[in-house]
């Protein structure tokens, strides 16, 4: 049996997960999102401080859960995995320091992993082994990428496309703020959109440019202009319609490009992850378009799409099983870890 303890601290979530033989035993999470809400975005120093106070209690919670579920104790851990990047430098460093400390104290190997590869790996906990290769669409407040993932055990992950400006989740946050909705913007926009009509034709940035890149800054500006024009004219802003139309524009571009990426490479499995993957319209439209194109869609449940420790433990487990060389103890946090390998550089 192989038990892996995973740490995720790349942004505002302190995540600790425990995976044994591909089975999720514990997924403990502490979030500092409320502390960032009044700033309308994640404040790096606030996030780093919150990780410091949360990290050990979150490990305690994870061990408690794994104990209840499978009688697993900390001493049963065979390897420690941690997000080495990309992410916020100060936040990453807390998780890396903690992971190393647990690895040293428990006398087990350390695996530094790539955050985006972990978002893909988490799907194996729910839907079993992934075929090789797959296309992954990862969309959150910090990243918007299309990747070609041959396998998760260390073979190069190829970037196919990425946002050229804002991340998709960032656009949700900014539009939510424009509409007077709370931070983070994803859930309230999704909620508002349910009672709204897709009645406003917002632009689809880069939709027809032939690349697999995204752009959300023009969309955000178009929404801002539209809302401002309404206000200047003294008319009420139809929040639900704006939310529905904005959300439709984002889901349209993301799913169209994801399907195009699969087609271009003849790949028939698409994995969607990241916080924005929790968006109901994105999930529905992706399902519809994948079915039409004969592509198998795999989306983990929303709780596993957002940042968490389970995804890191899941990837760590796959790497241990594949015999990936452990990371050295002088592993550094790398905020700009390039998207080439699923194993962090040593």
């Amino acid at each position, binding site marked *: 049996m192989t038990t892996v303890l995973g740490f995720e601290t790349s942004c505002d979530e302190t995540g600790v997960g425990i995976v044994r033989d591909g089975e999720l035993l514990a997924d403990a999470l502490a979030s500092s999102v409320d502390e960032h809400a*009044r*700033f*309308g*975005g994640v*404040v790096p*120093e*606030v996030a*780093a*401080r919150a*990780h*410091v*106070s949360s*990290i*050990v209690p979150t*490990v*305690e919670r994870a061990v408690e859960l794994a104990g209840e579920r499978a009688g697993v104790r*900390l001493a049963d851990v065979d390897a420690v995995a941690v997000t080495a990047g990309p992410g916020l*430098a*100060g936040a990453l*460093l*807390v998780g*890396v*320091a*903690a992971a*190393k*400390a*647990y*690895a*040293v*104290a*428990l*006398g087990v190997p350390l695996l530094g992993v790539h955050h985006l590869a972990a978002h893909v790996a988490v799907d194996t906990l729910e839907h079993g082994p992934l075929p090789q290769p797959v296309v992954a669409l990862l969309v959150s407040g910090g990243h918007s990428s299309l990747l070609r993932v041959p396998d998760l055990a260390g073979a190069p992950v190829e970037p196919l496309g990425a946002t050229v400006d804002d991340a998709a989740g960032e656009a949700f946050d900014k539009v939510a*703020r*424009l*509409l*007077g909705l709370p931070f983070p913007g994803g859930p309230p926009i999704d909620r508002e959109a349910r009672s709204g009509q897709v009645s406003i034709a917002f632009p689809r940035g880069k939709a027809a440019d032939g690349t697999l890149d995204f752009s959300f800054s023009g969309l955000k500006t178009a929404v801002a202009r539209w*809302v401002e024009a*309404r*206000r*200047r*004219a*003294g008319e*009420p*802003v139809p*929040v639900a319609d704006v939310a529905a139309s904005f959300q439709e524009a984002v889901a349209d571009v993301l799913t169209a490009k994801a399907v195009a990426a699969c087609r271009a490479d003849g790949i028939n499995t698409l994995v969607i992850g990241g916080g924005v993957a929790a968006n109901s319209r994105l999930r529905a439209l992706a399902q519809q378009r994948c079915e039409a194109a004969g592509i198998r869609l795999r989306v983990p449940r929303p709780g596993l799409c957002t940042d968490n420790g389970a995804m890191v433990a899941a990837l760590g487990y796959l790497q241990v099983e594949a015999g990936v060389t452990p990371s*050295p*103890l*002088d*592993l*550094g*946090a790398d905020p700009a870890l390039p998207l080439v390998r699923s194993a962090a550089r040593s």
Partner: protein
Amino acid sequence: MVDTATEACIAAVCRVRPPGETVDGRADADVTVLASRAPIDARRHGELLAPLITQVLDEAGVGTGDLDGVVAGVGPGPFTSLRVGVVTAASVAHALGLRAVGVCSLDAIPDADASQDVVVVTDARRREVYWARYRDGARTEGPDVARPADLLARLGGDEVVVGSAAHLTPELAERALPDLPRYPRPGALAQLARAAMLAAEPPGPLVPLYLRRPDATPPAAARPPETVPPTGATL
């Protein structure tokens, strides 16, 4: 024990003698430093600390299972590097089921036997210093953060200045002791933690001494569209 509150990345293994214990019929020193490393590299504590811990354990011939407690200097210090030591200590302690004791890093810098008042200063970046004042080895003021000129203005005439920022400005350097202690001393950290380590009550969680609030400016407040009248609004 670890301390990453200054430019030094410190890892050490110390033996702390319980009260009343004697070796060969005589009382041993309270604290013996078995192995210690303290490379100076302010930007690489995150990379350096874990390998240093394995090195000092090897050198001391001590396994992780032989440890009885963990001591951390909890600052004040520059946030990013300070967190490395605090998180490492808390994690090692939890993993091994040991208690973790936090000590003010500045307290471990001065030699206790100075005849004058001692002011410890370390680099707080942004042209400021973390500082604390000591008399007969006991802290009488601080820790706090200040510009060197403001700190000097509140001092009397006869304090001496020690610590890694003692030469940060010429005015501080004028009062600096020759051959001054610059960084926390492992033996002193262990000595300072000794009582808490041996006490019946377990200590609380390690809390870094930041002494500064996070840099964060809220963006302009959002205007809820339905509630703000289009003209003549007073916010």
